[in-house]
């Protein structure tokens, strides 16, 4: 499921499919109703899109720029801790 909704799949398949759908005559009224919904509510959609972009930015920032390395115990420290536990 997660693979179907991956970013790559969306870009590669879903978006072009939607454009193709828009060219089918029987789908035109549905496309028109979606478009008119967009134009009627564009202020709210703009707010929602802005919020989504901010959240996406924060998510990407942590994913791409934050790479903490945890301190790993050296072999000497590991041996010492084993001795203590014994």
């Amino acid at each position, binding site marked *: 499921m997660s693979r179907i909704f991956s970013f790559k799949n969306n870009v590669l398949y879903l978006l072009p499919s939607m454009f193709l759908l828009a060219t089918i005559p029987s789908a035109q009224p549905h496309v028109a109703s979606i478009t008119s919904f967009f134009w009627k509510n564009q*202020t709210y959609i703009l707010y929602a899109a802005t919020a989504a972009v901010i959240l996406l930015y924060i998510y990407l920032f942590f994913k*791409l*720029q934050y*790479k*903490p390395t945890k301190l790993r115990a050296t072999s000497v420290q590991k041996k010492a801790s084993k001795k203590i536990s014994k």
Partner: protein
Amino acid sequence: MALAMTLFILGIGAQVLSLFQHEPFQAAYFYYYIFIFLGLVIASMLGYKEIKKALHGIGKSYYIYLAITIVLFVFLEVAFVTPTHLLYNDEYIYVSIAKMLITEHLAAVCSFSNATMCVPGTAGFIHQPLGWPFIIAIPSSIFGVSFSLAYALELIFSVLAIVFLFYTVYLLLMDQRVAILASAILAFTPLFMRYSMSSILDIPAVTFLLLSTFLLAAYMRRKSMVVGAAAVFAIAYMLSIKVDMISALAIILLILLLDSDKFEGVDAKKHLKRFFILVAIAVIVIFPALLYVYAASQMSFGAPQGQPNFSFSYLKNDSLENLLFWFGAYNKVYTQQFNSYYYSEFPITYTIFAIMGAVALLRYKKYRPFFIFTLWFLAIFLFYTSYYAGGVNYGAGDDVRYFSSAFPTIAVLAAYGFASIFDYIKIKAKSKGKKNQKVLKTNYILLIIMLSILFGEAVWLFATVVAVPPLHIYPFAAERYDENFIMQNYQQIPSNCFVLTFKPPLWYILDRSNIYAGWAYSSSYEYELLNMSNRCLYFDYGISCYINSTGPPNTEQQCNQVMNTFNMYPIASTHLDNYSWNVSLFLYKITGLKNSSVNSSMNSSA
């Protein structure tokens, strides 16, 4: 609900805008510019060692190449390009505000002043923030306010832009060859060279954008708080140069997101915590600059009545035109209306190399710089193409300057493309098993050929377009002629007499008392005017009497009203018969009020 919300937001907007019309707010912004300028200088000085460490690794020879580039750039500019105003009436308004900042300590524009001071309570808000006038004001406080000083500063800031691009590219790509070539491409971009000999905002805007990207990249490299603080002040100053630099925030966020220097290692958490402190500081420091942008957005920028400033339909209509600009489609455009040519020049070779550079970045899997530089271009392109005046041919090409912020990214991509192709051919030649000596010779020949291809068109455009004398520049030709006429004749007017004009800032710079012509017969100002002028009045019958520059009532109507109110005779005149203009410009001495069609209150005062 949506209507109520819009009204609420508009209500706040009007309140904020009105705040900027009052002196305490205008004075507060004068101190704000001092604060961010000093903040930038002090933080940069304190962070000097860290910045130097971040730039560690640049070879001495590359500093020599940079110096050669700068010397050649300055030589070409000073020797072949005559400085002139390219944007009317904005450029002299910025210089007049520099005088306001020095004499009145107010960040505002004056439209009613005697020779020494702006009449209290009459200074007004201008839709552009005043960071650039503040910079002009600093040396002006020593050398005096003049156009030549503003031109010199613009040239200095162009040089700084070239230097900051070199550092930015080095920090983002870690390739000094690409960095120096990108700087050279920016320096020899014909439009960049043309703007560098004016005093428009776009050059300092690019400089502060590149200073911000450079300091931000240096911060990401060293994670030094002082360098981070310098970057914050640089961003605040960038936003204080031009309202539309708000779009450059996208570039700043891109670099923050995609810089190859990350918050990593054992100190990642500590650095991230400090970073959030910096973000908090940034919000506080940048807030006044954003408030100014918000107040400016409440004013009309001249969009056609009933139409928005930004729209998807502008984007749809202007996209192709703006795309073709980068392929040199408007290097020479003929306008039938004025039987003249204008130039929105850009070398196609830069764009072709830039496309190759983008492909090469992908090919070598340098995804982060690829996205930084391509999205940088896209952000600028989409922002201005969505703007009502963002078409490259809008206003006979004078608005092509908006794309100045995209010149650096094209320069970087073109430089990368150039370096990649050069390396590819070099490797191919080497693999053919030629002797070392022969390979070296071939490389030099190859470099010269490729540089000739890269810069050939730019050199041609410089010689044929950039170096043309100001009187042959078509956009604002009439305004330029009008300004020259005033510069040649203003000394005939005594400084204690008042000039009724549609260009008060220009007369303010020239130390002549003046009032906006439309205010002369308004009840709010006429008593003060008659009192201060001792009835010694002149009228500047300029190009605004032929062009409806504001309204309603427009300047043409206001001009006619002045002509119908006063008796006057000309003390100087000129005739413009060029670019389909056939108009006469005058400086009149006002002798008294006309008996007919007289403003009743003015009559009784007189």
